[in-house]
């Protein structure tokens, strides 16, 4: 059967609310409005206003309240309408959620999930399009997950909620409405995916393509297309950006000897720079060519559709770069 990412996230939340009464949801418009992007649809009706809490537009405050309640043993799922707005509360994510277990010598854990759409959507311009994967994955104490398909969305979100550590869960608005095949296993109410493990989406011997979130889909398309030209691409879906599954990446590169990373975020100190670095640290002698990164353009996001397209990796950009790399 098929399932949209939206339904995958919604069902994951539903099941985890049902499973553990310490789990609750808070954020703007998560309740009566059913979620700005309808991820929490139906949950207020099912679990009541004590467990699905609409907040005022005060990210610093509700993020801090969520973290405090997690210190006390609850398991909040804190929705940001988008991750751009989480910057207003980011001090609580970094200085309180991520660091307290360590500072308290293991006494106070923080089982919380910060979730919401991250990165570019369509036509929402510079203040609503930033990718925060690099920032959060920079910080020890946090785990950072980014689902691509419905299986990821269910398995990773359920794992994140059950995890005793603070998890930053980066969704993609454009994927919400996209449908993916799901097996009965994925639909099981105890289906979870391991945090810290990447998924090999497609095997190939000529080139390794690594990506997360929406770019995984692009890479799969590119792999299909280039397969017709005789280029066999291995596609890795990171799933977990922190911890990073270095082993899966490096093993693939040992086989293909060529690697490329694709992300929509900015290049400097991006996720791509880390992936390139890890590959050259662990498989330098295996590389037949420099690792390539295809990233979002190094500019604030423009509004006009024709400019926006050029500010983000397109399938053709990836094809061009992959072809070039495969020939090196």
């Amino acid at each position, binding site marked *: 059967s098929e399932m949209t990412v939206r339904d995958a996230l919604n069902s994951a939340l539903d099941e985890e609310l049902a499973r553990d009464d310490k789990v609750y949801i808070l954020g*703007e*418009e998560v309740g*009566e*409005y059913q979620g*700005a992007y309808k991820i929490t649809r139906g949950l207020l009706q099912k679990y009541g206003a004590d467990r699905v809490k*609409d907040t*005022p*537009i*005060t990210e*610093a*405050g509700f993020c801090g309240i969520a973290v405090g309640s997690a210190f006390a043993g609850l398991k909040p799922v804190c929705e940001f309408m988008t991750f*751009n*707005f989480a910057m*207003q509360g980011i001090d609580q994510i970094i200085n309180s959620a991520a660091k307290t277990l360590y500072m308290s010598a293991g006494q106070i854990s923080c089982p919380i999930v910060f979730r919401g759409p991250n990165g570019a*959507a*369509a*036509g*929402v*311009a*510079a*203040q*609503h399009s930033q990718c925060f994967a690099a920032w959060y994955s920079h910080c020890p104490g946090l785990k950072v997950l980014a689902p691509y398909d419905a299986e990821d969305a269910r398995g990773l979100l359920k794992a994140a909620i059950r995890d005793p550590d603070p998890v930053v869960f980066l969704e993609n608005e454009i994927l919400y409405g996209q449908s993916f095949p799901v097996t009965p296993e994925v639909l099981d109410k105890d289906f979870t995916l391991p945090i810290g493990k990447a998924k090999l989406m497609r095997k190939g011997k000529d080139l390794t393509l690594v990506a997360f979130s929406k770019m995984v889909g692009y890479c799969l398309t590119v792999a299909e297309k280039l397969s017709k030209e005789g280029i066999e691409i291995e596609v890795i879906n990171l799933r977990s950006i922190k911890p990073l599954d270095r082993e899966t990446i490096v093993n693939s590169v040992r086989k293909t000897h060529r690697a490329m990373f694709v992300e929509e975020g900015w*290049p*400097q100190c991006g996720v791509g720079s880390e992936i390139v670095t890890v590959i050259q640290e662990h498989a330098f002698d295996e590389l037949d060519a420099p690792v*390539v*990164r*295809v*990233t*979002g*353009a*190094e*500019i*604030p996001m*423009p*509004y*006009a*559709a*024709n*400019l926006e397209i*050029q*500010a*983000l*990796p*397109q399938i053709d*950009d990836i094809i*061009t*770069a992959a072809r070039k790399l495969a020939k090196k």
Partner: protein
Amino acid sequence: ASDKILIEVQPFSAHKIEAPSNKVETTLSELRAHYLFMYRMRRMEIAADMMYKAKLIRGFCHLYDGQEAVLTGIEAALTKQDSIVTSYRDHCHHISRGGTIEEVMAELFGRSTGATKGLGGSMHMYNRKANFYGGNGIVGAQIPLGAGLAFAHKYRKEPNVAITMYGDGAANQGQKYEALNMAALWNIPIIFVCENNHYGMGTAEWRHAKNSSFYTRGDFVPGLKADGMDVLAVKQVVSYAKKYALEHGPIILELDTYRYHGHSMSDPGSTYRSRDEINAMRTERDPIERVKKLLLANGFDAAELKKMDKEVKKEVDDAVEKAKAAPIPPDHWLWKNVYAAPANTELRKVDGGYNTPDYDPEYKN
């Protein structure tokens, strides 16, 4: 037309300040100007709604219809030397600060002739020369920014105020309280304008604010509340506030208003409030109808009004057509104005190459 008309607006509510008189004077020619301006806004926003539905506009699009009297009254009390900054609901500010409807529509269509050349989009319009500082997509961010604009006026010893406009939802933001405190400590000439349209997205004021008398929430900062559906009330209270702010520092104005449309285009606007409520607003409190009635009651020629309406509709229709016909921004604009001094800067492209960006605020090259 220059004969004085005396009107009693709804009395103002006051917090730690004496309210101004609710007896205001106007003239037919002033009323005509208000009407015209508000009707232009109204038609522009209705056009934006249609164009959005026709898929000519992308992303977020927040409409201002219903709230026209707020901005119109504010501008009537200010000069273009006074600074203004607002939220994402900013199309009309572009007009009130000297821009054209065509520029707004072109921006929404992502055209090179747009208010911000297709770079900014719906939420990001500005007019630096007329002291309009945007358009801000982050709820609450415009509040300290506005205080900063006012700080600059004071620093330069200019006889001007800044106005920051924010919603009832934004009124809960912590940065508002931080800005209030500093503005009061430093006597900054800033008018905090809370446009209370009673909903922050889908959340009614009583669900998001423990105290929804927003004009009282400044504690030590005085506040006034006015009918934000009455342009004359708004003008009166803002004139008074400007004088106060220049002498004493910050003041809060709560302007009671209503947005007819949903929060943005993805919100039908009818799940969290009743159709009855919306209809009642339209029939009983519409800011444009109010002025229209006043005009007619004071002898303004009905035919002239019809003619004005027709001209406005034509202006908007023409603006839409011109905007549609305008070219999209050329590719190389992507790399302009990331920095005002881009020396030694190269910006990385998607394909891994680098671009040497330029500073070209006139988009000449």
